[in-house]
């Protein structure tokens, strides 16, 4: 493969995305307006934040299926704590109660991520299994906490976290973009990033190079669980309640975006920027179809086709495996 064709094929997704936006700008009413673009950005921000963590998890050779449930659980847990700490009978004022609840939720989430890592590294339980169990377990826990009804203990200003704007940009989008910058730099320019790629590419070679494989997996799984919880807090802020049924199936959208972005499920290969593009891609397509009044059922079909074709394009770009 010549250098030009290689660099061309590495931006093939970006090119398709630009073309797609061009087409939508022409045919979809109201697509190319500032409001709509900000709307797309807001829509992808909460899933996108988790997708950044998921990219690290998948590059390190693991997976986290529990992120959707974690979003619901985190929102419910934060609401539950706020209600008890800052309610009429609570010991705290509403401001410290909300702050404390958010901190406690983030810490609890990272401990759950740590549990997944511990089971993986100490007892060899695949993260696929642990997080599959957490997927139902956390949903159940959220339902237990809320007893099936939305909890609404939040004060008015809480809505800022998920629904507010800073200089005209949705606050969740700011969080997402800052997190993107941090994770992008982490994965491309730090020794920790190198270690993540090495662990996912060949865990034994990494271990024999003196890299602390267990620690790398612990960090990425904890971070991702915490990002899911942060996303859950933003979500609960947007809808101003802790609801157990929220974010159902998010894990699949998120994994889809990561894969569309070129990250390999077998680990060791992937780009944070690719996940960003994959996330925007999904957001734009969904938004375009909504604007064009295409039914939601078709949107699901198209999304499925998209995942498959993105992976196929990726496979076709790679040279066939060498046998020797």
């Amino acid at each position, binding site marked *: 493969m010549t250098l030009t064709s290689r660099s061309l094929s590495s931006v093939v997704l970006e090119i398709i995305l630009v073309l797609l936006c061009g087409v939508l700008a022409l045919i979809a009413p109201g697509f190319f307006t500032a409001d709509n673009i900000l709307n797309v950005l807001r829509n992808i921000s909460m899933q996108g934040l988790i997708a950044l963590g998921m990219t690290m998890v998948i590059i390190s050779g693991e997976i986290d299926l529990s992120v959707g449930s974690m979003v619901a659980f985190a929102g419910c847990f934060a609401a539950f704590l706020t209600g008890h700490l800052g309610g009429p009978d609570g010991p705290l004022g509403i401001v410290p109660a909300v702050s404390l609840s958010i901190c406690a939720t983030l810490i609890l989430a990272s401990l759950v991520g740590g549990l997944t890592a511990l089971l993986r590294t100490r007892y060899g339980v695949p993260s696929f299994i642990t997080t599959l169990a957490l997927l139902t377990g956390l949903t159940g826990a959220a339902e237990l906490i809320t007893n099936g009804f939305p909890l609404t203990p939040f004060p008015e200003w809480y809505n800022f976290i998920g629904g507010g704007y800073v200089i005209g940009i949705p606050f969740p989008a700011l969080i997402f973009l800052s997190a993107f910058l941090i994770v992008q730099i982490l994965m491309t320019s730090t*020794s920790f990033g190198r270690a993540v790629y090495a662990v996912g590419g060949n865990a034994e070679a990494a271990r024999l190079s003196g890299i602390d494989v267990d620690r790398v997996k612990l960090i990425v799984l904890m971070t991702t669980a915490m990002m899911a919880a942060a996303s859950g807090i933003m979500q609960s802020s947007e809808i101003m309640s802790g609801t157990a049924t929220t974010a159902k199936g998010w894990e699949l959208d998120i994994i889809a975006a990561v894969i569309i972005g070129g990250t390999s499920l077998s680990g060791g290969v992937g780009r944070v920027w690719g996940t960003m593009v994959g996330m925007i891609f999904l957001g734009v397509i969904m938004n375009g179809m909504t604007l064009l009044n295409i039914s939601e059922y078709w949107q699901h079909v198209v999304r499925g086709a998209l995942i498959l074709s993105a992976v196929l394009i990726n496979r076709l770009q790679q040279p066939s495996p060498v046998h020797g």
Partner: protein
Amino acid sequence: MSSSLRAMHTGSHTLEISGIRKEYPGTIALRDVSMTLAGGKVHVLLGKNGAGKSTLVKILAGAVLPTAGRILLDGSTVDLRSPRDSLHQGIAAVHQELSLVPELTVAENILLGRFPLHRKRPRIFIDWNRTFQEAGEVLMQLGARVDVRQRAATLGVAQQQIVEIAKAMSYNPSVLILDEPTSALAHRETEALFGLLRGLASRGVVLVYITHRLEEIHRIADTVTVFRDGEIAGSFPVDAATPGMIARHMFGGTVQRRRPPGLQVSRDPVMELRGFSRSPVFENISFTLYAGEILGIAGVLGSGRTELLRSIFGADPHDAGNLLLKDTSVVPRSPRQMKRLGVALAPEKRKEEGLVQILSTGTNVCLASLRKVSRRGFVTRAREDDVARGYVRDLDIVTPGLDSPVSSLSGGNQQKVVIAKWLNTDPCVILFDEPTRGVDVEAKQHLFEVVWDLSKRGISAIVVSSELEELFDVCHRILVMKKGRITDEILPHESTVEHLLSVCMQ
């Protein structure tokens, strides 16, 4: 596919190999080899790693296509394009690595893919009675006592080996190839296997037997054929096969660079092992390694040499004994810890354990020294490439580019990347496990020069290798390891390769 076994053939077979040539990009593995192998006899093939005998076995087993040449079985040309072709033409091979499906029964393993089907019911149901009966018959003909209903996972290695042979025999082959079948067997089991092979030979089967154990030859072989550099160096009846004769043919007049004479070993101990054990893999290993010394460990596969290196490096546990690094007692717990103390390991499985194949050459060079390469945790491509470029120049690494995945490098160059990776950690001891496996002659010389250079700089090396003459030329001192114990110490300047070979193979 035939659902029942063919009757066992009783006539004597002949296998003729005519002008077989195999070229790989850059190397020629076999150079127009011709030989005739008569049935009823055991033909032993000998040769160093890479001499061409395993390529020949792969061609006969249908796993690899020859570049040129013909194979004739009982006078007619056979076309071997896949392992299935070979089996159906009557050539069966038992490979060194056992390949039974552990959760299936012995009978299922023997008849895998060829289960007899029910005659009455719709022909999709397996006839289990006949399955067990037919598998039992094959084992009985081999005189082996293995329960056909037992799961393969519950068998010992020797019994597994017998099931492998039974599986091969169930195809009723005219030619049976065994690649180092005794490397995992105890003495008594080896005896049983030999009895079995004698029985097969008496039925006219052509038996091809590959081994590295010299002492087996006189117990099993009828003829001995020695391979060297892709050619047959000599073929003679077993009576003529003295150790000296075999060594001469195996090593021939290969010109090898010798260790430069100026290479001195200091008397400062760098590493000392006292009663280092990991039962039952290796036991009571004691030796002292001096600064700048190149210490060889000779031993066959399964002697515990790889495991010893891994335990010293903290990659595997050990259960007794002491390790001293520069007079300080150390308990190796993890590669991370041993790396910090200045120990490095270039593992045997270079591709699987030494490098992350999908990452770039530059990243791989820096993999063990991320802390040193990074500045406050930050590391850039440019910085990695700077470091890597230095080693590419010093070690003469041929790479299409620092950005390209390390998998695109040749075996020898990958080995140099492994060495570069460890040199960047400033080690005082490098453990080399089979450093020249899969490396061509010229690249081997480069590797040796690298090891000698390290020695000059006071960096010690422990080199494990099955290539005895290499150890002989490279090392200051050679320990012989057998069944987990050190049995001999040989000083190359006071000895000969032939002596080392006979010590190792007895």
